[in-house]
């Protein structure tokens, strides 16, 4: 690990090089992504916004290695990648603690070590004492925090998030933004955060990448200004979000 300086030199953690993803063949073929290049620096919080059909979820699947691009390359440079979704997708038959243990069991972590790390991860997401609860006993926001702990239990330093707070109420989402930001710093994570919500993207991202729809391409990139921790209801966030939203609207009307 390098020492942290004021402006750490960022080598790319994820390098997406001119990828294309086509689903199907012949006449029924659909191009989800067409010539997309994105470079995500180590420790960067990159927010990706776009309307429906911009290939956001496809992009994350490709980075997670769940699928392969038709052409082009995805290079995660040996980083371990984990992923979170809009639904927590916890295993309902397991306790919270056992859910967090699943990725460690996959990685062959011994039992005592697993218990210790579950405690540590639960403390990180502020759910100490909830290890023996079942997912259905928790609120939606708490479940997403367990899902985050489970994703971190994979020992990943690149975290892909597919609209993780999309199904939560505004108050919970606001609190989780703070929490995610804190954990991102504490753990020096690299995050690719996909969302429909432009303000959320500006609130969280170091940089916002705007995608076009059908097919997905990079339309524009916006470096986000403003000291962290930011507030989603601050004037600075609203202004920057407005610029991006305008461009997003133009993109959406183009498909009318």
């Amino acid at each position, binding site marked *: 690990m390098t020492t942290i300086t004021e402006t750490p030199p960022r080598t790319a953690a994820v390098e997406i090089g001119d990828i294309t993803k086509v689903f199907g063949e012949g006449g029924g073929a659909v191009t989800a992504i067409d010539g997309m290049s994105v470079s995500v620096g180590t420790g960067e919080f990159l927010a990706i916004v776009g309307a429906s059909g911009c290939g956001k979820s496809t992009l994350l699947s490709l980075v*997670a290695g*769940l699928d392969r691009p038709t052409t082009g390359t995805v290079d995660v440079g040996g980083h371990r990648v*984990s*992923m979170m*979704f809009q*639904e927590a*997708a*916890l*295993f*309902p*038959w*397991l306790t919270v603690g056992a859910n967090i243990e*699943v*990725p460690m*069991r*996959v*990685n062959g972590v011994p039992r005592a070590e697993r218990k210790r790390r579950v405690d540590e991860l639960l403390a990180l997401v*502020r*759910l100490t004492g909830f290890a023996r609860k*079942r*997912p*259905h*006993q*928790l*609120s*939606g*926001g*708490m479940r997403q925090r367990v899902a985050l702990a*489970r994703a971190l239990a*994979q020992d990943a330093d690149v975290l892909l998030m597919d609209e993780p707070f999309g199904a939560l109420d505004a*108050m*919970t989402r606001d*609190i989780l933004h*703070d*929490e995610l930001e*804190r954990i991102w710093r504490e753990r020096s994570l690299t995050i690719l955060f996909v969302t429909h919500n432009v303000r959320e993207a500006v609130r969280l991202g170091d940089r916002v990448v705007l995608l076009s729809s059908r097919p997905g391409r990079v339309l524009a990139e916006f470096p986000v200004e403003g000291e962290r921790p930011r507030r989603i209801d601050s004037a600075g966030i609203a202004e920057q979000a407005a610029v991006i939203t305008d461009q997003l609207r133009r993109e959406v009307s183009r498909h009318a």
Partner: protein
Amino acid sequence: MPEADVRDDERRVQGLDALELRPGADGPPAAERLRRIWAATWPKLVAAVLVLAAWQAVVWSGWRPEYVLPGPDRVLPVLADELASAEFWQAVGVTMRRAVTGFALALAVGVVVGLAVSRFAPLRVAIGSLITGLQTMPSIVWFPFAMLLYGITESAIMFVIVLGAAPSIAGGLTSGIDYVSPSLLRAGKVMGLRGVQHYSLLVIPAALPMFVSGLKQGWAFAWRSLMAGELLVVINQQNSIGWALSQARQLNDAERLLSYIIIVLCVGILIDVFFNWADRSLRRRWGVTAS
């Protein structure tokens, strides 16, 4: 970040968590539980009394002579005598041993077939509808063939039990596996679940509720096949519930006949209660029911 801010964040998170958790989620107090048990019990007791009363009324109406249709006043003492006799327990023992062995065989066959069908698409196409078809077949039609194959032996009964119960068990397992939520499968994939762990940590537990439904249905078929089998395939006058039933009929012993029918009913109810309990506790753990 200043210390006060950190504490503030923490309190905010904990406050919201406390607000969002349902109060009193730890279950009802003892008195409430007792009241619920009573609420679930008394209608059953009333129903039992009503059935006995209706039965007695039919007897009193003189529709059939009392040596053919005795009332509960004569059957229940015989039942009590039976319950005290060693012979009776021997008969129940033989029948239950057959039931458990047959069901275990059906379970083994059903699980292997169910797993194979869910794993290999061509196999599903080939025998998927056959499995459904077998489920709808009255198992009694297999007995003549089973007796040809195995003679008058216990194997003939086992053969029919397996044919009756295995399709339901296999069907429950396949649909359980088919309906594992795609979001859980995706989460498993992201976590790198593969091979044996994909099954042991994800697919099998996820399929469990439907598998239990399949087991319950399979048991019902097994129990019916067994009763039919014991009446049809009478092995060396070996004592069993079926044997006792046909003996009682031949001896015109209506009291004994009815006591054994009550026993068969009770065994059925007991096993059903067990499966319902298993089903409910699974659902409660999963948080599927609202209770």
